[in-house]
């Protein structure tokens, strides 16, 4: 998923570079704990390990191959998404500068997609799923495997959006294509991440973050759960009409609703975006959740007592 030179436009490259440099600065500050006698070898070795693992492509369907991205794995082994992001960003810098794997002009976009989106989605989902599964270490491989698979798909969707904004490809074409291929690659990512962690849980459980170490803040679990429901489970929603619509169809007044829709267009009609079913439904669900949260938060700010 490394975007090469020439795929992203100058504004997209510049914007993603600015965001990535800022985030990298924060990551360097937040992962100071990773640079000590105890943790520095783990950070260095994990970086080297993921670099080596990314060189090994495994075949997926349709004559395509994929490789481990390792964002979720790095974050879990290092016990911090900031250190994980730093690890993946270092791998991407080495690959772009020394091996021309991923463009130098697209380095910002690649770091944004893989080192920040990939790592943070993988880490947040792992924490959420792990907690929902009971929180024991034996469940960590399963939670991280699922999270790693989803993180690959989310990173691919980000890359597709950047390519569409750059004018390289049409959104309607690139989005389903990228998501489709990366679902298969995500399965491989999930299996490898889960398998490696299953081994580490058995052989060196002290390496993995324990119950007393960095815990995810209380707000992350509900937020990620909402995004999971709105973004992922919404894809499996039934396309059949609801009770009222069914009655309206049967009794012949459904056309009235259609006439109103034509005269008052809405941006996410029928929970789709840009006439894109599937991914469009997810995007509409996530945007809707964010808007609902924003409105509710705004109301709460207005009505709460001044001294609260």
């Amino acid at each position: 998923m490394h975007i090469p030179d020439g795929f992203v436009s100058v504004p997209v490259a510049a914007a993603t570079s600015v965001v990535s440099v800022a985030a990298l600065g924060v990551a360097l500050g937040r992962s100071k704990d990773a640079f000590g006698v105890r943790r520095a070898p783990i950070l260095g070795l994990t970086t080297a390990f993921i670099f080596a693992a990314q060189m090994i492509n495994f075949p997926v369907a349709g004559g395509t191959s994929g490789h481990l991205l390792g964002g979720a794995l790095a974050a879990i082994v290092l016990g911090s998404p900031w250190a994980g992001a730093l690890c993946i960003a270092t791998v991407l810098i080495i690959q772009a500068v020394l091996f021309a794997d991923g463009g130098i002009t697209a380095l910002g976009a690649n770091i944004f997609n893989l080192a920040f989106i990939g790592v943070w989605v993988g880490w947040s989902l792992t924490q959420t799923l792990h907690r929902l599964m009971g929180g024991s270490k034996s469940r960590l491989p399963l939670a991280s495997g699922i999270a790693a698979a989803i993180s690959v798909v989310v990173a691919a969707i980000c890359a597709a959006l950047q390519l569409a904004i750059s004018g390289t490809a049409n959104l309607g074409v690139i989005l389903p294509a990228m998501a489709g291929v990366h679902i298969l690659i995500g399965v491989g990512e999930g299996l490898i991440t889960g398998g490696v962690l299953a081994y580490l849980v058995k052989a060196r459980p002290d390496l993995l973050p324990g119950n007393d170490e960095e815990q995810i803040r209380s707000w992350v679990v509900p937020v990620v759960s909402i995004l999971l429901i709105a973004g992922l489970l919404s894809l499996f929603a039934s396309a059949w009409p609801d009770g009222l619509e069914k009655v309206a169809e049967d009794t012949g007044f459904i056309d009235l609703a259609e006439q109103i829709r034509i005269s008052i267009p809405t941006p996410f009609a029928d929970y789709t975006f840009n006439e894109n079913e599937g991914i469009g439904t997810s995007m509409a669900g996530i945007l809707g959740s964010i808007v609902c949260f924003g409105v509710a938060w705004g109301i709460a700010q207005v009505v709460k007592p001044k001294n609260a």
Partner: protein
Amino acid sequence: MRKFSLTLRLQLSLIIVIGAAFLKLNAWYWLCGYGIIALCWAVSLRVPIRKLTGLLGLELIFLSFLALPLGWERASFLLVRSLVCLLTMNSFLLTLPPHSFGIALKGLPLPRALKETLLLAGQYLEILLGEVTQMQRSAKLRGLNGVAGWVRYANASMIGALYLRSLDRAERVYAAMIARGYNGMLPVDSTLRIKERFAVVAMGILAISLTVASYQLALS
């Protein structure tokens, strides 16, 4: 080859690569300029030709899979530009004395923590490859001969075992580095001399001129 310090070599290589990467698409004349600079760089470093061509061929085959679907015109420019970048960086890497990447890295204007991660990743890659070789040998001794046998043997647990074995060695190496005076950076002086600084500035100006000129030509 001796006349260039490691820090200077890395900085000049990076200037050429970054300058070429930012060239305007289809600015062939300016790319030729970078190509000549890269060739001169490879000759002056006396890079082993056979190793270099083998490495370039392998990397270009991989890159062509990515670039060719974009159409011949665009792909050919991207591939030639990648060839220039790879020629420059491979010339640097292939003439680098063993375990000296950290010395070259020290002179780069990057955050210390990032340089430490890059340095350790480079050091530990050798450890990782060493462990892979040992595990391959062990697999062969157990009767898993050939690539097919090795692939059958490789699974997620195996990758986990590789990680742990490498980590044990990496921790020992790190403890030894600390004992020898390592404190996040190698204890060597990697500041550029005045002549070297002049060379870096001159190359920087040349690279900026070539890259900016490629855009001005496109505008006019």
